[in-house]
């Protein structure tokens, strides 16, 4: 049995408290009045030099009245972007940790459906990670809905009735994109995932003391069914929770792209937690061969993520259709460093670090590569949400970092609490002997 060390528990509480303070600070400083934004913009203009001021003056003489309207509109736009920032920061971090749990749930189901012989020793670690799914996903959905009810439409513009009234394109999609249906869909997704998680966990624990393999067979069946449900709901979840922040844009392989991101970050977290537990001597049946296999998954799915990222980017770049390409133009113009930096972190770094078979067996090496991959995939989600909500007013500052701390603390607390609830070896699993003796 695993006991949650007091040190780690305190650490997770500190993260949560620091996170809450930072998030609160972010919300308090994001409500700028019209005048404040006006002076802020004037100052920025001043710093950039007189170049754009000349243009403004020229236009003013042309059309005094129209210019005033434009000016007011611009300020309101920036004001809204500044107000969006703590919401988006919170949402990105919440989604990032939720998707780790969801990715591992899919990985777990695949291990059962494929009857993998190497992984049963890691099942309890996976079950621990998936414990975060239910609270994590509910938080994501709650933030999304709250942004459109108690907030001022800080994440999804299609939730704003005034925007919809003037937007033919969103009106055409409002049969799908409306808050009620959005919430119902979200609850259906979460319910489906959690029901699978609940029963898989239940059967897994029941199998420990069972005399036959009936629990294992049941998990096999529900895993196969879950994977079908998952691939539909994961796709729709990615349209709802991520793609709809840009309601004018759509991409057909988006669901797969988000899936690749969640899968690789999930497996990376699995590797990190396994290495942590192993270093604390809780997993004497896990050896370097298991680590090697997990690292191979990290390597392969980093490449898979890159493949989908590039396929999406290249197809849109190549055909250059205005209605599609704006998505990448905003990202390229305003997010050059995170946009290209994540390709380095999610592709170039892992492919060079994890290609060598010997390196995949060295824990600290996998930890280093894993941390870079995780940061890279946080930036991936950041790049999906932020350009649509805060535009060029982005920064990785107090609101973003404290949101990460908040959910990291929550994640650690939930996951390691769940790990204490059952023995770390699923000893009734019919494949456990093969897994313990696994040798690559």
């Amino acid at each position: 049995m695993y006991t949650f060390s007091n040190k780690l528990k305190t650490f997770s509480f500190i993260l949560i408290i620091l996170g809450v303070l930072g998030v609160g600070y972010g919300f308090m400083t994001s409500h700028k009045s019209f005048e404040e934004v006006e002076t802020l913009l004037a100052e920025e203009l001043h710093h950039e030099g007189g170049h754009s001021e000349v243009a403004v003056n020229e236009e003013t003489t042309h059309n005094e009245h129209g210019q005033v309207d434009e000016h007011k509109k611009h300020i309101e736009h920036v004001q809204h972007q500044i107000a969006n920032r703590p919401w988006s920061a919170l949402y990105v971090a919440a989604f990032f940790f939720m998707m780790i749990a969801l990715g591992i749930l899919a990985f777990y189901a695949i291990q059962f459906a494929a009857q993998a012989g190497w992984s049963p020793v890691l099942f309890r670690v996976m079950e621990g990670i998936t414990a975060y799914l239910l609270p994590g996903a509910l938080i994501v959905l709650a933030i999304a809905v709250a942004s459109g009810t108690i907030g001022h439409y800080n994440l999804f513009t299609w939730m704003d009735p005034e925007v919809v009234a003037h937007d033919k394109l969103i009106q055409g999609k409002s049969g799908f994109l409306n808050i009620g249906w959005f919430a119902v869909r979200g609850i259906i997704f979460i319910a489906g995932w959690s029901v699978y998680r609940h029963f898989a966990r239940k059967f897994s624990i029941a199998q420990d003391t069972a005399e036959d393999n009936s629990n294992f067979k049941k998990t096999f069946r529900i895993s196969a069914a879950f994977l079908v449900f998952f691939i539909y709901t994961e796709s729709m979840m990615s349209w709802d929770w991520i793609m709809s922040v840009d309601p004018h844009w759509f991409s057909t392989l988006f669901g797969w792209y988000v899936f690749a991101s969640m899968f690789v970050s999930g497996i990376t977290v699995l590797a990190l937690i396994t290495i942590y537990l192993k270093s604390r001597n809780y997993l004497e049946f896990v050896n370097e061969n298991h680590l090697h296999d997990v690292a191979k998954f990290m390597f392969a799915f980093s490449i898979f993520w890159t493949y989908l990222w590039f396929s999406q980017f290249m197809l849109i770049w190549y055909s250059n259709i205005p209605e599609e390409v704006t998505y990448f133009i905003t990202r390229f113009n305003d997010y050059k460093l995170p946009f290209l930096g994540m390709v380095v972190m999610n592709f170039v770094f892992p492919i060079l670090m994890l290609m060598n078979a010997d390196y995949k067996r060295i824990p600290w090496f996998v930890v280093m590569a894993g941390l870079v991959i995780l940061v890279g995939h946080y930036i991936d989600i950041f790049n999906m949400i932020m350009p649509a909500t805060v535009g060029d007013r982005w920064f990785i500052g107090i609101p973003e970092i404290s949101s990460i701390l908040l959910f990291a603390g929550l994640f650690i607390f939930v996951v390691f609490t769940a790990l204490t609830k059952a023995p770390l070896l699923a000893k009734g699993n019919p494949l456990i002997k093969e897994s313990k003796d696994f040798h690559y």
Partner: protein
Amino acid sequence: MEASKVIHAIYTDDDVLMSAVKKVKAERYHIEEIYTPFPVHGLDKAMGLAPTRIAITSFMYGLVGLTVAIVMMNFIMIKDWPQNIGGKPSFSYLQNMPAFVPIMFELTVFFAAHLMVITFYLRSRMWPFKKAENPDPRTTDDHFLMEIAVDGNEVELENLLKETGAVEINLVDKAH
């Protein structure tokens, strides 16, 4: 100096072969070669063979392929005749790079795969019309053969091999 006389010990089971290899190694005899009809897992480790470096060569060939692709397309599409083809920016390599990535990828794989295979053929001396070096045709079907050099110690070696479960032991004079 290579011994002119060798012993061919023949086995019919790969597990027996494995334990025989370990025993012969423990007695510090030099195993010249082992012929098996299929890969026996762990045999290279038991024999103490050095690990292969073919993956490293493959990585380097891949880099060569990537370089070839980049240099080729940079010359053709950017340097030599930078046309405007459907509005694609051909002012610099980076600007038009996404369009080149499929070729960069394929040439990397092509070079890595083919040159590695050719390296394998060269290193293991395999080519068409090559004379087969098979001491006993049964080793391609269901027998395993261990070849050990002898140097005046035939009797004790034969006894050892018999103990390890060899079904047949032949003393072969290679000089003939």
